[in-house]
C-alpha cells in the first residue's frame, strides 16, 4: 500500500514538473506590441505526425519574422518584427483539432473570442479547414489555408478565405498532363486509371475531380477503370488491393495519408501489383517518412510536391529556410510543410503591408497583392477572386534511389522520370 502511494506521489511530482514547464512558457512577460495569429493543426490524433511538423514550419516563419535574418532574401526576414508596425512581434497561437472538424470549429471560435487573434491559418485536413474558415468568415477575420487541397474550399464564395496550395482540381489536371507527357515522350502507353482514396473530404473530393477532369482527356485515351474508397481507419487493406490487382490499372491515383499509404505499398509488393505509374495527391507520399519506412520499396512512386530537397541546391533562400526548420524538426522541409510555412509568412506580410491589424484592410492587401515567395518554384503568390493562389507551386516528383527528384516540368528537372515500375522482385 505504502509503495503504491509512493508511486502515485512520484507520478504527480513528475506530472507537476512537466506542467510547470508548460506554465513557465505561458507566463513569459507579454511584450508591448504582439500580434496574435491562430494556427489550428492536427497536433494529436491520426495525423499528428504531420501536424507536429507543420507546427515547426510555422515556428520557423515566426523566427524569421521576429528575428533578423539578412541572409534570406525576404521582406520580413531583414528586420526584427514587422517594420511597418514599429517592429511589432508576431506570435502564433497553436490549437489542436485532432483531425476532428467539430473541434476545429470550436478552436477557431476560442482563438478569435478568447485569444483575440487577428488572423487564422491551418488546418491541414480540408475537412477541418472547412468549418474553421466558416467561423473566420462569421467573425470577419482573414483565414489563410496552407496545405488543405480540397477544391471545394475555394468554391464556397467566402470573402475572408485564401489558400496557398494548388487545389485537387489543379493537381488532377497536373496528373493528366504529366501522364500525357509520359505517353508522348516515353511512349509509356498509359490508359487505364484507378483512383484509390480515403473516405473523407479530401479523398472523396479528389475522386470527384478525377471524374470531372477525365472528361477533358478522353481523346488522349485515358479511361477510369476502378475507384476504391476505404475507411479513414483501416486495420488492413487486403480487400482494397485485391480489387486493384483484378482491375490491373496502368496508373493509380492515391488520395491517402502516410499510414494507410505505407500499408498499401506493402500490400502491392506482397500481391505483386505492378502498375506503370502511381501518383499521390498531397498526403502520405510527400511525407519523407514514406522513404524512411519503405526504403527501396518507395522508389518509383510519384506525386506533386511544393518542394523537394533535391531542389535546395537550385534555390538558396529555400535552403536557408530549411536550415532553420531542420534544426527544430530534424528532417528536411517537405511540400505541405512549406505550404503552411508560406501561409504564416503571407498573413504576417499582409498585416505588415496593411500597416494595421484591422481585418478588413489586411484582407484587402491579401486580395490585391502579389507576394514574393522565393521558396516556391513559382516564386510568387497571388490570390484570385475566389481566394485560390493562381500560381501553382508544384513540381512532379518521383522517388529515385530514396530521393525525391523533380521530374517534371522539364525546366525544373533534377532527374528524368522513369515511366514504369519494375517487377517487385527485380528491384
Amino acid at each position, binding site marked *: 500500500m505504502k509503495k503504491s502511494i509512493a*508511486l502515485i506521489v512520484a507520478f504527480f511530482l513528475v506530472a507537476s514538473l512537466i506542467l510547470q514547464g508548460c506554465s513557465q512558457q505561458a507566463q513569459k512577460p507579454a511584450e508591448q506590441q504582439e500580434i496574435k495569429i491562430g494556427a489550428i493543426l492536427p497536433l*494529436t490524433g491520426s495525423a*499528428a505526425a504531420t501536424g507536429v511538423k507543420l507546427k515547426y514550419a510555422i515556428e520557423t516563419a515566426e523566427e524569421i519574422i521576429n528575428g533578423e535574418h539578412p541572409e534570406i532574401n525576404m521582406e520580413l526576414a531583414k528586420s526584427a518584427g514587422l517594420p511597418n508596425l514599429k517592429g511589432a512581434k508576431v506570435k502564433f497561437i497553436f490549437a489542436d483539432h485532432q483531425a476532428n472538424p467539430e473541434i476545429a470549429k470550436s478552436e477557431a471560435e476560442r482563438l478569435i473570442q478568447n485569444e483575440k487573434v487577428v488572423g487564422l491559418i491551418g488546418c491541414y485536413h480540408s475537412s477541418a479547414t472547412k468549418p474553421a474558415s466558416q467561423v473566420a468568415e462569421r467573425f470577419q477575420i482573414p483565414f489563410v489555408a496552407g496545405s488543405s487541397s480540397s477544391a471545394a474550399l475555394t468554391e464556397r464564395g467566402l470573402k475572408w478565405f485564401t489558400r496557398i496550395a494548388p487545389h485537387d482540381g489543379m493537381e488532377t489536371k497536373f496528373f493528366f498532363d504529366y501522364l500525357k507527357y509520359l505517353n508522348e515522350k516515353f511512349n509509356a502507353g498509359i490508359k487505364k486509371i484507378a483512383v484509390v482514396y480515403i473516405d473523407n473530404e479530401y479523398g472523396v473530393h479528389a475522386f470527384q475531380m478525377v471524374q470531372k477532369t477525365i472528361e477533358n482527356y478522353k481523346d488522349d485515351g485515358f479511361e477510369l477503370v476502378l475507384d476504391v474508397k*476505404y*475507411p479513414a481507419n483501416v486495420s488492413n487493406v*487486403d480487400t482494397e488491393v485485391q480489387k486493384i490487382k483484378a482491375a490491373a490499372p496502368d496508373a493509380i491515383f492515391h488520395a491517402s495519408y*502516410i499510414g494507410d499509404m*505505407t*500499408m498499401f505499398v506493402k500490400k502491392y*509488393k506482397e500481391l505483386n501489383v505492378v502498375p506503370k505509374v502511381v501518383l499521390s495527391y498531397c498526403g502520405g507520399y510527400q511525407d519523407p517518412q514514406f522513404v524512411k519506412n519503405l526504403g527501396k520499396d518507395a522508389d518509383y512512386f510519384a506525386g506533386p510536391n511544393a518542394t523537394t530537397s533535391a531542389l535546395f541546391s537550385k534555390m538558396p533562400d529555400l535552403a536557408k529556410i530549411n536550415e532553420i526548420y531542420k534544426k527544430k524538426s530534424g528532417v528536411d522541409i517537405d511540400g505541405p510543410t512549406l505550404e503552411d510555412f508560406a501561409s504564416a509568412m503571407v498573413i504576417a506580410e499582409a498585416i505588415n503591408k496593411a500597416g494595421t491589424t484591422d481585418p478588413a484592410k489586411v484582407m484587402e492587401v491579401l486580395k490585391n497583392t502579389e507576394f514574393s515567395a522565393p521558396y516556391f518554384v513559382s516564386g510568387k503568390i497571388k490570390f484570385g477572386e475566389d481566394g485560390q493562389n493562381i500560381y501553382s507551386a508544384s513540381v512532379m516528383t518521383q522517388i529515385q534511389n530514396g530521393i525525391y527528384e523533380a521530374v517534371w516540368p522539364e525546366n525544373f528537372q533534377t532527374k528524368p522520370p522513369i515511366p514504369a515500375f519494375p517487377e517487385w522482385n527485380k528491384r
Partner: protein
Amino acid sequence: MLGQVIISGVLIGFVYSLVAVGLTLIWGVMDIINFAHGEFLMISMYTAFWMYAIFKLDPLLTLPIASFFIFVISFLTYKLIIKKVLDAPGLTALLATFGLSLFIRNLAQFLWTPNYRFITESFVADKKVAMGPVIIGMPQLVAAFGSILMTVIIFYFVKKTKMGMAIQATALDRDTAKLMGIDTEKVYAVTFGISGICVGVAGTLLSTFFPVYPEAGALYSLLAFVIVAFGGFGNIQGALLGGIIVGLTESLGGFFLGTQFKYAVVFLLYLLVLQFRPKGLFGW
C-alpha cells in the same frame, strides 16, 4: 479471387480473436470493460519496435519479452488502479480504464512522437507463400498461427489448470469462490495479467506488418468489443469464432459491397446480434 479474399479475412480474424480473448477474459471474470486494452496492444507493438530499432532484435524473438512486459504492466494496472475501484459502482471502473487509455495514448505520443513506424526487417518480412492463385503474406500467416496457438494455450489454461478453474469459479460467483477458499484477489490480478499476455503476443505479431503509432490499438480494441459481444462475455471459443466472423465479414463485405463499407457491415452485424442474441452468438 474469392479464395484470396476469404483467406485474408480468416487470417486477420485470428489476430482479432487473440486481442478479443484478452478483453473477454476480464469482462467475463471481473465484469469490467477495459478501455485501455487497445493501448496495451499499442505498447506491445512499440516494445517490439524499440527492441528492433535499438538492439536489432527480430520481433519474433522478442515475443516473450514483450508479452512478459505487458503482463507486468497489466498486473500493475490491476494492483494500482482497478483494485481500488472494483467495489465502486460499475461506471467508476469504466471511467478509470478510459482515463488510463487516454493517458497511455498521449504519453506514447509525447515520448515517441506520433510518427508511423514500421519494422522493415524480420524473418518473415517480404516473404510469401503462393498456393495457386492465392498469395499469403508470411507475416500474416505467422501472426494467424501464433494467435491460434496462443488462444488454444489460454483455453487449456483456463479449462485444465487449478488456477484456471479458480478463474472460472470466480467468474461464476465471486463471493462463493471466496468462501471456498479461493484467493479471488490473486485470481483477478492473474486474469488481468493473462489478458496482457494476449495483447502482448498479438501486438508483437502485428508489428511485423502493421504500422506502429500511438493510435494503433484503437481500431483493434473497437473490433475486439464487437467480437466479445458476438462470442459472449468470458467465452474464449466464442471469441475465436467471433474473430473469424468479423474478419470474414470485413473482407467479404468490403469486396462485394465496396471497401468503404467494410467496417459498417461489421457494426451492422453487431447491432443485429445485440438485438436478437443479447448474450452473444455463443454466450451462456
